[in-house]
């Protein structure tokens, strides 16, 4: 990974931290568990994905590990308003 990629990844992460949540498309999910396995905070992302619920956990760092690792493109970041508690 070159410096440019690292900077870009870091920038994406900071942006996501500020304004995003992880949103699943459950129709793409096969419950493989890679998302949950890689979550540094052990959030059961797979459960959210399977049930079609955004990862609306106060513990979620939106670090992007689950989004990046999912082999089937189940997860994505979605922007939320900063002061609406993730209800958008």
């Amino acid at each position, binding site marked *: 990974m070159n410096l440019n990629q690292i900077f870009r990844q870091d920038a994406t992460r900071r942006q996501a931290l500020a304004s995003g949540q992880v949103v699943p*498309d459950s*129709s*793409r*999910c*096969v*419950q*493989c*568990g*890679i998302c*949950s*396995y890689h979550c540094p905070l052990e959030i059961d992302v*797979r*459960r959210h994905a*399977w049930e079609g619920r955004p990862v609306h956990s106060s513990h979620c760092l939106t670090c992007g590990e689950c989004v990046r*690792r999912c*082999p*089937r*493109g*189940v997860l994505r970041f979605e922007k939320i308003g900063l002061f609406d508690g993730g209800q958008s």
Partner: protein
Amino acid sequence: MRNYVIIGTGPAGIAAAQAIRAQDSRANIVLVGDEPFGYYSRPGLAYYLTGEIPENGLFPYTPAEFNQLGLRLIQSQVTAIHPAEHYLENQAGKRLPYDRLLIAVGAQAAQMKISGIELEGVVTLDNLGDARQILKLGRGARSAVVVGGGITALELVEGLQSRGVKVHYFLRGDRYWSNVLDETESRIVEERLKSEGVRIHYHTELAQIQGKRGRVSAVVTQNGERLDCRLLAVAIGIRPRTALASAAGLKVERGILVDEYLQTSAADIYAAGDVAQVRDPRSGLWVLDSLWGPAREQGHHAGLNMAGVPTPYIKAVPFNVTRLAGLTTTIIGTVGRGQDADLLGIARGDSETWRQLPDAIAAQSDFEVNRLRLMVGQRHLLGAILIGDQTLSQPLYHLVSQNADITPIRDRLLDTRLKLGDLVAAFWAEWSSNHATS
């Protein structure tokens, strides 16, 4: 108190149990199956083979969560169904009565008829037990041969290659998955496999498996070439496990025939998942799918119907996401036709519908490894395949499944000078604002 029995512990069986429990808190629900590991992600075995996830990560539910559902799990092989008397029999000769029965036993890998197939070191990938065995054999093998097609063959190729085994992949024809992918797509996959070190042998058919002391030692091709190997992986398709249903006198074709309520030809017996042959409202044909999502949907609907909540199952446009040679790939609707010499029929992660293509013109665009192909009918999109960039996969699923009238952009879709992705994105923005989509 009603007695529900579900044969099979895969996604259809579990979804049915959950649906029944939601309707009937007092019901007696029994799951019986020969799978020793219970419920886990079968598609996840691909990532277990590559080492991306450990075995214990494949299990979505803890035993405590199963207990909360109030299910009784029996690990046993059912040997007979007696529809008139409403009971099952297992291998120990024990009887298990039911009021409502669901058959959700899935499918199993088809096996080749060739001498040496019984040798140790010949493997298929049906379940976790198989995956464990493949990893064990792979640790002692310097080279392996994979024969077959579809998604499972690639899972085996990539799993073994990533474990440091030199993989020889035999294709009977001149390209990979020829009745679903077009030539460019096949080549994208093949080139990426080759760059990872996989050796693809085109126009190559297995003639003989040789062994030493009961173990595979080499294979011989029909061209007379001999290749040393300790592992031969076979993925030539799957067969729905219909034997129980046939013996019980249920109507069976390629799978167990079910009506729109997923009921079989026998009273109080339902079928769902890979074993069920379901009517496709678009073609009017009864077809097989081997897909995680539809299995779950069918199980859920069967459970509701069994619990007395009539809920017709309307088969949706088949849709699957997979990873081919490291590229995320979505297949929607019908994208190909005909036979693939490497497969006997349907494979895992596959749908018969994908290859029932009526007249359509293909429109495509490529950018490096990203590829978008649309099957353009007279007024509608009939199917789509996206390799790499997945931005348009949801829009295309809605446009295909909701029969969007593409007349306003049809000519432009077929104009090779224009960018297909941009056209679809602009059309989607307008179409979705005019239509309520889910």
